[in-house]
């Protein structure tokens, strides 16, 4: 593989840098459909959907759940700015389900102490997490 060009993939969320890695190929959940990126790609800024980001490095392939955002491609550096991101394999299905149930419960409880908007965001996140997880198992 000597001399083969690689892409640098950075996944950055407001909380922290999730990933910084050299990879061969990336598929982004772009707004108008999935978009593949190989080394030497033209300079590009794309809006991202809620969806799955895949990347391939040699023989390993991994998936991330991406909660919307932007991707910038410049000089073989792909920077993904997402609201939140999670490695599909690290998503705990039971935990996501529990969070989903929790969010639903707090949304329907009408308790003044509960932060409605926060609960709604949690709900959306839990749904995507489950979606990504289930999609993965279907392959």
């Amino acid at each position: 593989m000597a001399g083969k060009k690689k892409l640098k993939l950075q996944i950055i969320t407001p909380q922290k840098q999730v990933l910084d890695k050299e990879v061969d190929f990336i598929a982004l959940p772009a707004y108008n459909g999935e978009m593949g990126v190989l080394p030497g790609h033209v300079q590009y800024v794309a809006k991202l959907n809620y969806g799955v980001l895949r990347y391939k490095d040699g023989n390993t392939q991994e998936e991330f759940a991406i909660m919307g955002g932007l991707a910038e491609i410049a000089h073989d550096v792909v920077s993904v700015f997402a609201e939140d991101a999670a490695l599909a394999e690290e998503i705990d299905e039971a935990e996501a389900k529990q969070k989903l149930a929790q969010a639903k419960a707090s949304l329907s409880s009408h308790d003044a102490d509960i932060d409605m908007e926060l609960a709604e965001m949690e709900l959306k996140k839990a749904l995507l997490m489950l979606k990504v997880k289930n999609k993965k198992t279907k392959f």
Partner: protein
Amino acid sequence: MESLRDIRQEIKSIKSTKQMMLTMKMISSARIKKAQQQMEDGRPFAKKMAVMIDNLRKDIQNPSSEIHNLPAYRFFDNSSTDKNSVALVLITADKGLCGAFNAVALRAALKWVRENDEKEKYIFVIGKKGRDFLRRLKVPRLHLAGELIGIFPRASYAHAAMIKDTLFELSQKYNISRVDLIYNDFKSMASQSLISKTFLPFNFNEIPGEEDLSDFIFEPSMLDIFLTLLPRYLSASVYRFLLESQAAELAARMNAMEAASKNAGDIVDKLSVKLNKVRQATITNEITEIVSGANAINN
């Protein structure tokens, strides 16, 4: 003269207060490391968002750009003539016992209210101390537009996003031309400084431009990218302010508690000296009484 028992009681109570202060200091110093880490982790995102906004500067400032027709353009328009409504984001703490931390922020807020006396004022307040203060404040044309209580020491990006949403709503509903910001900046463990500045409209001079996005292809369109970028940039900025204030609060509390427990130690020392004197005096008294009693019998 105080009795021995009274003094012992006092020493005991001061010692237990001191113990509490030391505990609070330790809690703060344990949390501050986490708060600092959180600030560090959030930096790449905020920085990149700012750089990307800056890269769109040419498009934003281009008078024929579609951005000028957007309601969001007001965040970049420095020439707005309608200055009748202003907003303030005030970040304080939920709890006291952190030195002048809340006092300086509230003083600055009061100054801001006076300066904008004639205008419609909308305040978004974070922290119980600030909210209670503003509720007591009876000033005409002052509106409490939103409050966020009990988020420290676990301020998250979701909170920042909520503040951003409220600001967006407010600015459209009430035609707000300027959003100011008051918070405590975390300089170091030993010092915090109050920041009172204009948050919006956007000041391009604050961020150094790095690369140029003019060669880029945008998908779906530059306008869409701009609309995606802007809320994220604002949230990331607000998030940073929250984290700064959070770390500053912990640092302030740490210092205040350290000073207080030192003072408590001094008082205990003084009381111990007093206790010993009183005890000595009592003993001397008793001896004198016994000796004089014995003398009386002998005579």
